[in-house]
């Protein structure tokens, strides 16, 4: 593993993104627009906006990052550039960390923009500091990115990759506690939700926006989100094969 190969890969992925301004705009603008939409959907219930507006700051970037990275990685697999790289002296982790770094930069931009809009424009009230919310929003986007990189290994076409979003993300959205508090779900679902990463992503964001703020439980949630991110990147590296049939 070398820093130069990782950085070169990150630079290359960002350069590719720059050639596709529409994707960049979608990545940065869509979460903001959704947040604005949410504000006015809940126009008559400002307390509901304060309750779920904060957590959704992290969930929208989670979804867009998941989608963009899974398709980008799939493209690398299907166009033959991955096979070329795997025949070259580059470590698998260099490649994945390069991707992680590039999309991490995008995630930071996205989180900065979305939190600015939410607090500056939409008067979202938060019990925690805006910096805490910003950190959680980035962590969520990075989690979406690493899961997207991982699941792209199981898709052989872009159609399949897109279907992984409803298949793997929607159940987590239903179970994470956003719609119904987890302790009011059927016991088996409550138990299932405790092993899904989005549950912790949501819970942490909920604590720093509408709950007691950045306490030890929120710190644990953040640690879980980061640990799953690293685990997914590691698993992603094992799905990159130097030899194929």
């Amino acid at each position, binding site marked *: 593993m070398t820093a130069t190969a990782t950085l070169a890969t990150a630079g290359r992925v960002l350069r590719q993104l720059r050639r596709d301004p529409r994707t960049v705009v979608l990545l940065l603008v869509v979460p903001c627009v959704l947040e604005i939409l949410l504000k006015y959907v809940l126009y008559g219930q400002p307390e509901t906006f304060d309750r779920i507006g904060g957590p959704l700051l992290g969930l929208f970037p989670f979804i867009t990052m998941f989608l963009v990275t899974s398709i980008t990685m799939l493209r690398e697999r299907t166009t033959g550039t991955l096979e070329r790289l795997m025949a070259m002296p580059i470590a698998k982790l260099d490649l994945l960390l390069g991707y992680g770094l590039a999309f991490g930069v995008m995630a930071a931009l996205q989180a900065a923009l979305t939190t600015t809009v939410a607090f500056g424009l939409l008067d979202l009230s938060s019990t925690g500091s805006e910096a805490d919310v910003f950190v959680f929003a980035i962590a969520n986007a990075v989690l979406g990115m690493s899961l997207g990189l991982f699941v792209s290994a199981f898709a052989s076409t872009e159609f399949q990759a897109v279907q992984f979003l409803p298949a793997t993300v929607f159940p987590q959205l239903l179970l994470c506690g956003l719609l119904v508090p987890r302790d009011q779900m059927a016991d088996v679902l409550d138990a299932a939700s405790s092993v899904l990463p989005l549950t912790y992503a949501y819970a942490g964001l909920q604590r720093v926006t509408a709950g007691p703020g950045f306490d030890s439980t929120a710190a644990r949630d953040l640690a879980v989100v980061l640990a799953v991110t690293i685990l997914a990147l590691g698993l992603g590296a094992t799905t990159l094969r130097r*030899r194929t049939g």
Partner: protein
Amino acid sequence: MSSQAAIEVQALRVVRGGIEVLHEIDVVVPRGEITGLLGPSGCGKSTLMRAIVGVQIVQGGTVTVLGAPAGSPPLRSQVGYVTQAPSVYLDLSVEENLRYFATVVDAGPERVAEVMAAVDVAELAGRTAGSLSGGQVARVSLATALLNEPPILVLDEPTVGLDPVLRRDLWATFRSLAEAGTTLLVSSHVMDEADRCDRLLLMRDGHILATGTPAELREDTGAGDLDGAFLKLVERAEAKG
């Protein structure tokens, strides 16, 4: 012979999609020469090349490259590989593609300009690869493999779709690389390229039909050209059984 050989393949067996595509074949590629791998489409040329580069899962036999098992980590900077479908980033410019791959293979930045000149794409440096013609992208893909001046080059149909002038120029490039000591294994399904090789491996249906210099193969079969020689060898193999 074996100590001089750049590539040695013994009893290589490969199964793809449940069908055996290479049937225990033996191949020796000497150093510093251009070895042409010829045969019809689908005869197993690409699979053999993938096995030599070390990206193919094999079912049996050994592939030794420069004395090491194919695909072992030290070989990744020793073997340049160009796939049949050009594998470059279509949304990046020619120069951006080469700069990225140069970093990956640890080649100096000056090599980018040198390889662009070698395959005659210098004037396309700023164009995105996706906007180039098929032959131009193929040359960019080839340039990528030349970046770190590997001692072995494995080129899968590098001249497909190129006009005759470019083909002649590329073969001149291959020749000068070989004269500088590079071992080249070049596949083609056009027999008229065979005469530009030092040595030929004729393949059909996952078997090696014959090996030798172009002159030897013509002499052996009594055929006037290599197309004729190939046909004679097929007939001979079928008669045998």
